[in-house]
């Protein structure tokens, strides 16, 4: 059982507060660290992996400090986001070197390469690898010593769907084996598919925590905003506001459109076309105006 404890951790770079008083406990199983770009995920993972000192607070693994403690790496495997990885080596040479640095050898390296299914290309130079192959070799290098904690920063970036599936399967297996696996992502679906537990971080703050159902609910139970253009905006506005599923409408003159706020998402999506039809109004555009992940997240933080 390996538990990572993040206790009132903050980190700032000059005036920028990248991580703001975050406290969380990461236990066995797969945890997803979800947040938009710039939220502070990499900074937090850097502190979890001992590559960055917290400005305040502490990070401990089963009670032992992570910062300035190289012995802790006997228990931690790290898959960095960055691409730099001794491109002049072959995949096998790279993983063997990583094994040796742990006091292990070619046997363990071979097993790790088999785990990520990279044996077929292990004798090619890393510089010739695709993004997904590099990711898998990084993964092998992080697994050689069978760590109890695995940290992965945006591991699915740039992977094709098949590679993504393979990696998800592998991480799921690691979680099933009782390892503590933490990965970061800015894509909700990715985290939903894989993580048993989700930690949401927005603008450096710990915004939410729970299983995917809870997070999904937090994200969907909120007013939805739409931008609507029609052949007769005024008449449409009058008709829509009469229905309780619509909580607000304004006419945006610069856009030449209506901004509609709906509280009941399901009801509104059937209401809008019916109302338009009944009044002989033609709908020109209907687009969600705040479906970007960033706005979903900022709603979460404001809540």
């Amino acid at each position: 059982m390996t538990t990572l404890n993040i206790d009132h951790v903050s980190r700032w770079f000059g005036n920028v507060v990248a991580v703001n008083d975050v406290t969380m406990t990461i236990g066995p199983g797969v945890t997803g660290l979800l947040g938009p770009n710039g939220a502070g995920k990499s900074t937090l993972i850097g502190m979890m992996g001992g590559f960055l000192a917290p400005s305040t607070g502490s990070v401990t693994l089963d009670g032992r400090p992570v910062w300035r403690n190289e012995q802790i790496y006997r228990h931690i495997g790290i898959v960095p986001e960055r691409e730099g990885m001794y491109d002049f080596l072959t995949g096998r040479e790279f993983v063997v070197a990583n094994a040796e640095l742990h006091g292990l050898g070619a046997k363990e390296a071979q097993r790790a390469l088999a785990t990520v299914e990279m044996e077929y290309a292990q004798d090619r130079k890393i510089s010739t690898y695709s993004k997904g192959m590099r990711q898998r070799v990084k993964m092998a290098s992080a697994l050689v010593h069978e760590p109890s904690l695995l940290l992965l920063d945006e591991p699915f970036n740039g992977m094709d769907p098949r590679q993504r599936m393979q990696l998800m399967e592998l991480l799921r297996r690691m979680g099933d084996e009782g390892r503590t696996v933490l990965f970061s992502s800015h894509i909700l679906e990715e985290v939903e598919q894989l993580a048993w537990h989700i930690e949401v971080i927005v603008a450096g703050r710990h915004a939410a925590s729970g299983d995917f159902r809870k997070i999904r609910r937090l994200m969907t139970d909120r007013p939805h905003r739409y931008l609507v253009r029609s052949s007769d905006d005024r008449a449409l506005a009058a008709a829509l506001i009469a229905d309780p599923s619509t909580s607000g409408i304004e006419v945006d003159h610069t856009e030449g459109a209506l901004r509609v706020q709906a509280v009941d998402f399901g009801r509104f999506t059937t209401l809008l076309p019916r109302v338009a039809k009944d009044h002989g109004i033609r709908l020109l555009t209907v687009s969600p105006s705040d479906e970007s992940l960033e706005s979903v997240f900022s709603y979460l933080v404001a809540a």
Partner: protein
Amino acid sequence: MYDPTVARLTYRALLGRRRALILGILPALLIVISVLVRALSGTDDQTASDLLGGFGLATMVPIIGVIAGTGAIGPEIDDGSVVYLLAKPVKRPTIILTKLFVAIAVTMAFSALPMMISGLILNGNGQQVAVAYTVAALVASIAYAAMFLLLGTVSRHAVIFGLVYALVWEALFGSLVSGARTLSVQQWALAVAKKVTDSDLVTSDVSLTTGTVLLVVVTVATTWYAGQKLRALTLAGEE
């Protein structure tokens, strides 16, 4: 104190095709010039000493030192691959000492060897000139490798700073301002070289004792500091 895996990775990074080519340019140039000088003006001890000192020790050795010293760690820090060394139960000072060892070996190989060959071509080691400058190159290699390894650890622009030091301070400033000469690896190495040859062909602005002490102090201090820096190295994001 020495990790063979770290050493292997460092050698391979340093002696990769492109870097090895760059490392080889100045030594090749020194040898070519030596052949030409010998062919055009015959053997002359003073000429030999001037060329080995003025070009070899003042320019070639520090530049080889910059390339090998900064190259032993700088690129790994720049592209983030140093993570794979740091995320291991290996002591940070061991990483630095191993890299220092490799940087010294490479600097020596690419500076002392051509120095010896050129010396033999120029005057057949008359008055021990070739041996003296070879020893100077060996000694200077240690201090340069240590200084520039530190520079590669602390700065993203290590190569530029290193070249400025090598060219402006050692080659130019050092020959004009006497104060700068005392604080010059080149002069310390010359003090050692002077001891080897029994002639006046080699001169140094510092005594053998001063030179030796400063060489040791600089090597130890920069290596220690580089180890400290690596322990507290913060890996920034991909900005």
